[in-house]
């Protein structure tokens, strides 16, 4: 801006550069202030809760919170043989005190559950001793405790207690990686029966990849058709893509149950046409097949829309030029058309993969037993088994994968390029 009166410039007596810097700073601040309310809102409602969850995955005070004095004592123990009589005395007194506590998360039962994660079957040892420990009035405490339950003479119990007494520990990541501590305190692979999580991660990644691939194969011709048809016709067909996109997720899942179940539309049709017998109805839902079909249906528009918006911008003259120069159609397609659709392909693939890997509702409703994904296991630990730290550890691992993909997406495509409809 030019100033009409030069004397004002002299009065403020600032060099132009500094003035410019000052104005820019003000404008920067203004722009930032506009985003500030939302940034603050999301920090409180979204970023902080997730941060707290991440912290939960390494933090667990179910032992130190229940028997605080014992915690300090056992951490000084050298781990040889059984702890000293002194530590036993502190333990008995702490346990008796803890028995009277009614506060949620501070009860003996909470500690018992925590130890039970690492020593399956040890829960009753704690609850039983917790009930009887009030009767021990004087020493020797070691013998009195072992008299209640001879398992207290097992050094393994005390080693586990010592490990669990630390508030910050990688124990839940170790469990989430299908590993455990052995008797010598080393980290080893868990028993075959308990190896669930890595397998499930593998299955989730595999299913997400498969679903993404199917989406690519199905979306590519449709997006191409939409991009070459005259506007009027393509708008009409676009409705067939957008209507499912806009329809509630649960509605579509319900529809697939109605279609795929053993007494459903497809099975009825097959029986009707004699493809299968009345007793040969195919189980297509409540298993992996159902999950794949329903998820492909739900995620397909996320692949078609970015592909379409890229294909729309490709000049048909390029292909014509290639063909008129004597190229075979397939060769022209591979060397001229396909490379130009890569941005849309990358956008769709990443988006579908990111959404598929964290999917919860559809597998929960139509997945049955073998169609469950990692999200379902996380939800199970948060809502049913109440092993929150393990749920949080699994969640963190999933979050890391998704954030990495999000970062790649941002570098390659830019999230602000995303469009709907």
């Amino acid at each position, binding site marked *: 801006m030019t100033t009409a009166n030069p004397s004002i410039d002299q009065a403020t007596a600032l060099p132009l550069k500094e003035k410019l810097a000052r104005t820019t700073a003000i404008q920067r601040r203004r722009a930032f202030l506009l985003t500030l309310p939302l940034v603050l809102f999301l920090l409180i409602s979204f970023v902080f809760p997730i941060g707290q969850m991440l912290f939960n995955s390494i933090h667990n005070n179910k032992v130190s919170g229940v028997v605080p004095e014992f915690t300090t004592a056992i951490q000084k123990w050298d781990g040889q043989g059984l702890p000293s009589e002194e530590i036993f005395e502190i333990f008995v007194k702490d346990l008796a005190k803890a028995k009277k506590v009614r506060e949620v998360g501070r009860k003996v039962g909470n500690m018992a559950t925590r130890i039970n994660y690492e020593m399956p079957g040890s829960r009753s040892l704690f609850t039983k001793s917790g009930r009887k420990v009030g009767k021990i009035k004087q020493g020797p405490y070691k013998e009195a405790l072992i008299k209640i339950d001879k398992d207290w003479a097992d050094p393994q119990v005390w080693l586990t207690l010592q490990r669990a007494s630390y508030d910050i520990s990688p124990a839940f990541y170790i469990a989430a990686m299908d590993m455990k501590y052995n008797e010598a305190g080393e980290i080893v692979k868990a028993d075959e029966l308990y190896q669930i999580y890595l397998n499930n991660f593998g299955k989730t990644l595999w299913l997400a990849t498969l679903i993404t691939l199917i989406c690519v194969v199905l979306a590519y011709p449709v997006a191409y*058709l939409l991009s070459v048809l005259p506007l009027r016709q393509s708008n009409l067909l676009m409705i067939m893509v957008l209507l499912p996109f806009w329809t509630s997720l649960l509605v579509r899942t319900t529809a697939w149950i109605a279609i795929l179940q053993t007494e459903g539309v497809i099975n009825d049709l097959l029986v009707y046409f004699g493809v299968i017998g009345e007793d040969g109805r195919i189980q297509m839902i409540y298993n992996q097949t159902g999950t794949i079909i329903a998820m492909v249906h739900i995620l397909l528009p996320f692949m078609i829309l970015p592909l379409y918006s890229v294909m729309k911008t490709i000049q048909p003259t390029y292909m014509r030029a290639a063909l008129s120069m004597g190229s075979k159609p397939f060769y022209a397609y591979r060397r001229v058309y396909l490379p130009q659709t890569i941005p849309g392909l990358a956008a769709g693939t990443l988006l579908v993969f990111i959404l598929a890997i964290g999917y919860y509702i559809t597998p929960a409703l139509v997945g049955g037993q073998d169609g469950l994904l990692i999200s379902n296991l996380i939800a199970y630990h948060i809502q049913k088994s109440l092993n929150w730290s393990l749920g949080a550890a699994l969640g963190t691992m999933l979050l890391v994968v998704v954030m990495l993909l999000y970062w790649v997406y941002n570098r390659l495509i830019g999230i602000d390029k995303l469009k709907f409809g």
Partner: protein
Amino acid sequence: MTNFLQKQLKTKGRAYLYLAVATVLVVLLTGTMKAAVGFLLIFGIPLFFMEKMHEYATTGERFSRYIFLVISASVLVFLIAPVLIIIPLSFNAEPYFTFTDEMLSFDSKGYSNRWYLDILHNGMKAPEAIEGWWSDLWNNAQWIRATRNSFFIATVSATIATTLGTLAALGLSRPEMPQRALITSLLISPMIVPLVITATGMYFFYSDIGIAKTYTGVILAHVTLGVPFVIITVTATLSGFDMSLVKASQNMGANGWTTFRRIIMPLILPGMISGALFAFITSLDEVVVVLFIADVEQRTIPRQMFSGIREQISPTILAVASILVVMSVVLLTVLELLRRRGERLRGMSPG
């Protein structure tokens, strides 16, 4: 053989004849009209588009194009059929999820609106009573309560999300915005982070501060999930925005608020409304967070459907689903009209 095909296929209209013959064959072979309709849909529609090809195309080109059209048509049918099929199914007179024989022969006995009535009656104390029917419906019917909850939560959270999101989008689209990429990806991340993780985090934190199992908690969560959509749509509208209009307005002495109200807002309004609609529908459709942090009192439509599918699956679910499909058709129409208006305003050609 190839020569014959080539000749026949090149003659316009001949292909339709073949299709007709093939359809008659299908009818004769299967003995039903149903199969013929399906056959016509899958093979006839592509044919219609193929006939529009230029006449000098070779047989190979025609054939590959035909195959391509059949595949595309099947994918489109795959997309739309499940959404549409539930509408007739919801009028089933029997408690089945499939077409009964009466339905297929278009016998009126096969159809009924009982599942739609069930939506109203489910949970009512005395559905047959005349006195106090309305208040009974309003206060006790499960689906009515879920609908009230859904619309209340969705309206409030879409309003908040649109207000905060538009402000932020205005800031983000300024050229002077510092750390634009970082802040944009932060604001859009609720859409990317798996819902289970978001829900878990919120469940712990909202319980700690005592807003889990309250409307406040659910609304806060839904604002969070709706914000990315507002940011994306409003930023897209602003990308074609002529900044000199703002300067002109300021030159003429308008302050920031007047400029926004009189110049910016009318122009970005289509983007704001479609963002608000996205936020609204996100909230209306959201079930994972509701599963984690809502109580029975805050049950929404999708939450009610979730337990409906899990526990006692009855065609009532299909009736609800059909109503929702009709609703999304309406929403889609509104959005399309908005998009056209927006493009007209920005001087782009419609389409």
